[in-house]
């Protein structure tokens, strides 16, 4: 397929914005500035970027605990993201959620999720709502290789298949469920092979190839929008970083990680763009500089934002808020 320079550079820019945000989150966490857990999307940027390039604002996604990349690619405000990582009042969840629970309903992000496969039933429900409202929106449910071994995966795929719901199941197979290798925990070599059990198309692709992701998701989205139902896509990638920042990664040799750095998606795409004459050294510099500036701005915003008042902890449980006395 032929793509415009703008389109390709937009993909590149999104990947860079995710990478820079994640590198900063890692650095801040290691400096002790961020509480909780941080799960980095470094090395997986092509999947969120390629997938989301097919979505409009009203389309939905359900994300995972490794969700910063999904948020950024769907159009989230990185100031509010960073402030949430700090636990500040100006964060997406006003400091009540943190990294694993960021949501932005105004752009269709139905939540990151601290529970593996937790988003899949939610995606099925959004799919039902779309169908009942006779809309042409779609849902992309992101989930990892570990999630494909949970019961919710089975229930959700069967459910979306029988009702022909506009839900695309986008598996990010990064080879590891926490410390455990996918080969040791999963009965099939390709998670996409499981699609046959649900009578829906299943396809395995190189998740580090942003164009392959874009094109595969495009076909699935078109199919879903036109009433054709679900697709299972397995985007194979590699989790270059640990499960969380600070993970001692005793379960794999360092050399293996170094080998995968050679195949990380941004470098691959950059080379391709240069070969195509779609990215000059100057343009590249500009894109990286703009991303750094944007992320530095987000850090400044977060650090200068106030913490929530302690008693704010008693709000937001219910719409008619009467706090803990319920």
């Amino acid at each position: 397929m032929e793509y415009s320079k703008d389109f390709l550079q937009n993909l590149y820019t999104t990947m860079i914005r995710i990478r820079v945000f994640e590198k900063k989150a890692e650095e801040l966490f290691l400096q002790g500035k961020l509480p909780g857990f941080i799960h980095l999307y470094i090395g997986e940027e092509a999947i969120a970027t390629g997938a989301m390039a097919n979505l409009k604002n009203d389309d939905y996604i359900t994300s995972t605990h490794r969700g910063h990349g999904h948020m950024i690619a769907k159009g989230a405000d990185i100031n509010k993201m960073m402030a949430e990582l700090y636990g500040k009042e100006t964060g997406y969840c006003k400091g009540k959620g943190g990294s694993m629970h960021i949501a932005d309903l105004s752009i269709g992000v139905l939540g990151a999720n601290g529970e593996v496969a937790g988003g899949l039933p939610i995606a099925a429900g959004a799919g039902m709502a779309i169908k009942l409202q006779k809309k042409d929106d779609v849902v992309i449910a992101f989930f990892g290789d570990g999630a494909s071994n949970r019961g919710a995966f089975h229930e959700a795929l069967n459910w979306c298949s029988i009702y022909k719901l506009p839900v695309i199941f986008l598996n990010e197979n990064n080879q590891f469920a926490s410390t455990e290798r996918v080969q040791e925990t999963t009965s099939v070599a390709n998670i996409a092979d499981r699609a046959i059990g649900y009578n829906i198309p299943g396809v395995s692709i190189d998740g580090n190839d942003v164009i392959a992701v874009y094109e595969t998701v495009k076909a699935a989205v078109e199919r879903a929008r036109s009433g054709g139902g679900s697709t299972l896509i397995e985007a194979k990638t590699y989790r270059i970083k640990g499960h969380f920042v600070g993970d001692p990664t005793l379960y794999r040799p360092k050399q293996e990680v170094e080998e995968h750095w050679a195949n990380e998606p941004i470098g691959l795409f950059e080379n391709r763009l240069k070969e195509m004459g779609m990215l000059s050294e100057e343009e590249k510099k500009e894109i990286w500089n703009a991303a750094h500036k944007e992320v530095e701005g987000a850090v400044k915003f977060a650090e200068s934002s106030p913490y929530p008042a302690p008693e704010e902890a008693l709000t937001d449980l219910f719409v008619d808020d009467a706090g803990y006395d319920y």
Partner: protein
Amino acid sequence: MREITFSEALGEAMYEEMSKDPTIFTYGEDIAKQGGIFGAYKSLLGKFPDKVIDTPISEEVIFGSALGAALAGMRPVAEFHFADFLFTGMTAVANQIMKFRYMTGGQAKLHLILRGPDGISKSAAAQHSESIETIFMHVPGIKVIIPSTPYDMKGLFKTALTSDDPVICFEHKMLYGIKGPVPEEEYYIPFGEADIKKDGKDVTIVSTSRMVHESLKAAKNLEKEGIDAEVIDLRTLVPWDREKVLESVKKTHHLVVAHETWKRGGWGAEVASVVQEKDFDYLDAPILRVGAHNVHIPFSAVLQDFVVPDHKDVEKAVKSVVGGV
């Protein structure tokens, strides 16, 4: 006033609100063609065929999809089939539905309902008989309604269908067939308003669901012995009507709490605890709780009768509390 059954009351509430609000739909196992395993949806049969949906036996998605559907603009009413099977899909309820609004800093209006039967019936045994409403009072994040009469069922459910918070509704299996007065005109019962089912001056009995009827039976029998019991039906557990209970205890100076769920750690312990914190000086005797023994619901009728409380247990507790009155 006309009389209708408890399940007809539920059906009417659904029918009236579905006629007004096109975003309401309902789904679960055995509801569309069968009207529910206990006939709770019989009066909906043939109406709204696209919005009353039979589903696979997939509890985690039945519950979790309610969250997704609510976030995407619908007002789902998901049936849990038997309260026992809430545990089957419990993570979608406790980790997703009940936490979502809070975790996301109040971004979402979660207009969704989980509803279905709970409690004992005729020898349904341990996996089809439980009353587990206390769990949803203990863990924050869902409103709990647990009606005892057709009137309350309809009014509370209509409120649930117009609420912007998640609601779970427990309908006792032995109540679906009971009849009671329900006006023709529409009405709504707000959450957190207990109903005094019988006035009295000597002792307060706080109860819900089937045990309200057992408590009323007990009150009638106690009358013959000169004890005038007040029976309060909480109707909702989240929120629950502290004021009405505290007021009543100030008047009667005695309290018995009666529920079908287990006595140990049951919601009666919470009520008792709040009353002794706030009304200690008004109490003339210790508060007693009536609840199931701390075992599962057994199959054989003689065993079930032994484990689960009835009016005789309430009478015994009241007499013990009131003593010489």
